[in-house]
């Protein structure tokens, strides 16, 4: 037990713990909406746009690439959203094209001079190096998300069931979808450095998908998703700390186990 408590004597562990406590519910909430609106591929594509975001920052000579990452991701999300709307029949193709272009553009710039390895930390992420300031950013976006979801959860729900009917009820479909896309964009960009581009989408989708397997109403859906997300985040953090492996993958593995367990349980009954 003493060994277990010893981990709280390190500032970096407390920071990581705070980050998990924030990222967990934030991802769970956004994830439920993403899964409900069948946007899993969209958020994945957003993650890939981080390459170009960093590249833009490098070209413009911005020292903190976060700004360029977020800026680019927001623009990327909005453009994608609008083009998607015009071609509702082949959304997955459009997203795939966008994701590929963003990845390729980013890789072109970042690999110039053969220095790509400098940016490889983007791929895997490192939650242990998160600082207090960055936790504050996460807190701000977390509060913004909660406010947005409190206001818009029913609208989002209505839109995802039938956008035309929603529009006829005077719901500002385009505006709400745009705000939602921007929030996803900012959240993904703020979290990429901690969970890694390769796994950020898994953390968004898995808790919500697990919850969807077994929940019967909206309240259960959101509630279970938060529980799963927090649980896998905390367990993943502790396990990775004590056996000295990267945190992100352990969290994803725990979340995946929960997914399969709920999948089997949900299918059985």
């Amino acid at each position: 037990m003493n060994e277990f408590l010893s981990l709280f004597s390190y500032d970096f562990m407390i920071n990581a713990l705070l980050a998990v406590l924030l990222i967990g519910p934030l991802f769970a909430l956004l994830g439920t909406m993403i899964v409900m609106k069948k946007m899993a591929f969209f958020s994945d594509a957003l993650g890939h746009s981080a390459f170009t975001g960093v590249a833009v920052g490098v070209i413009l000579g911005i020292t903190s690439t976060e700004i360029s990452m977020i800026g680019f991701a927001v623009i990327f999300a909005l453009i994608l959203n609008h083009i998607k709307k015009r071609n509702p029949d082949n959304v997955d193709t459009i997203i795939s094209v966008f994701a590929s272009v963003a990845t390729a553009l980013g890789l072109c710039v970042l690999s110039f001079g053969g220095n790509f390895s400098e940016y490889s930390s983007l791929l895997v992420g490192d939650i242990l190096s998160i600082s207090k300031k960055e936790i504050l950013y996460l807190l701000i976006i977390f509060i913004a998300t909660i406010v947005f979801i409190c206001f818009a959860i029913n609208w989002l729900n209505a839109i995802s069931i039938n956008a035309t009917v929603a529009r006829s009820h005077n719901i500002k479909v385009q505006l709400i979808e745009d705000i939602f896309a921007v929030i996803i964009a900012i959240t993904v960009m703020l979290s990429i450095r901690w969970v890694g581009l390769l796994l950020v989408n898994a953390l968004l989708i898995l808790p919500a998908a697990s919850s969807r397997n077994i929940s019967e109403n909206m309240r259960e859906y959101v509630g279970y998703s938060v529980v799963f997300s927090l649980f896998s985040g905390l367990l993943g953090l502790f396990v990775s700390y004590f056996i000295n492996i990267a945190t992100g993958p352990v969290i994803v593995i725990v979340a995946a186990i929960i997914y399969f367990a709920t999948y089997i349980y949900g299918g059985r009954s």
Partner: protein
Amino acid sequence: MNKTKKNIFLITLLILLSVIGIIIISIGVSMSKKNDAADHGTLTVVTSFYPMYIAALNITERADINLSNLSEPQTGCLHDYQLTTEDMKLLSEADVFIINGGGMEEFLDGVISDYPNLKIVDASQGIDKVEDNAHMWMSIADYMKQVNNIANGLSAIDNANADIYRDNAAVYNSKLEELKGMIPDTYRGSKVVLFSEAYEYLARDLSMEVETVLDLDEEKNISAKEVAETVDVIKQRNIPLIISEKQYGEKMAEIVKNDTGVKVVYLDTIIRGNYDKDSYINAMRSNIELLREAASWK
């Protein structure tokens, strides 16, 4: 779906996972305990990577301190290195952190500022840098300066052991001086192509004229154009020698060798190796021997 049944299922699932987690954690803890057994003494010194560790190992000999090195990167160079939890623990317990400096530890910039009480000893202070290149330890002369910098830095922080540090540094530097004397003179003024910027410092010790530096050090993708340019440079300027690193440079070096008949020497960049206190000297000696051999084919 039955609600209570579902909740029982969920609670069982989460408890089961926690138990598995706790089992894994306790295995991890019991294993790491064995490693911590030797942890005593007053000052805790951490070095950023291999050559700094070997230097510090020699300088702190017989002094009652804890010395450890951050875990070694598995990849070619430090630039893309990520800290493990073990490293973060080391740093948060450390009193002194010895770095190579010159930009080599860029990956730590964000981390160090989290530990305001950590005293940093920058080994590259006052060393004449080759552009942005921070591989100073590859020049024996500069490495000796680094040894002095580390000894002075440690003495200023840990007064009680200052004499030990200075004496040890003097002993180590006399060994290095002897090693420096072994550097062959046959390469003076001769042209060379380097397949890692690490060798620029070695080339300076050898008084060679560096024509081109290709940094194959990191997992870099070499374009066909770069290969062609290198071949052209070697042919046009009649360059007799390439110094390359085995792990990353071999493929490229063999291609160029087949095309031009240039000689290739594979040398150690001494960024990893065994943790013996003479390992820098041994590695550098074998580098020098390889260079002498290469010169004898002339």
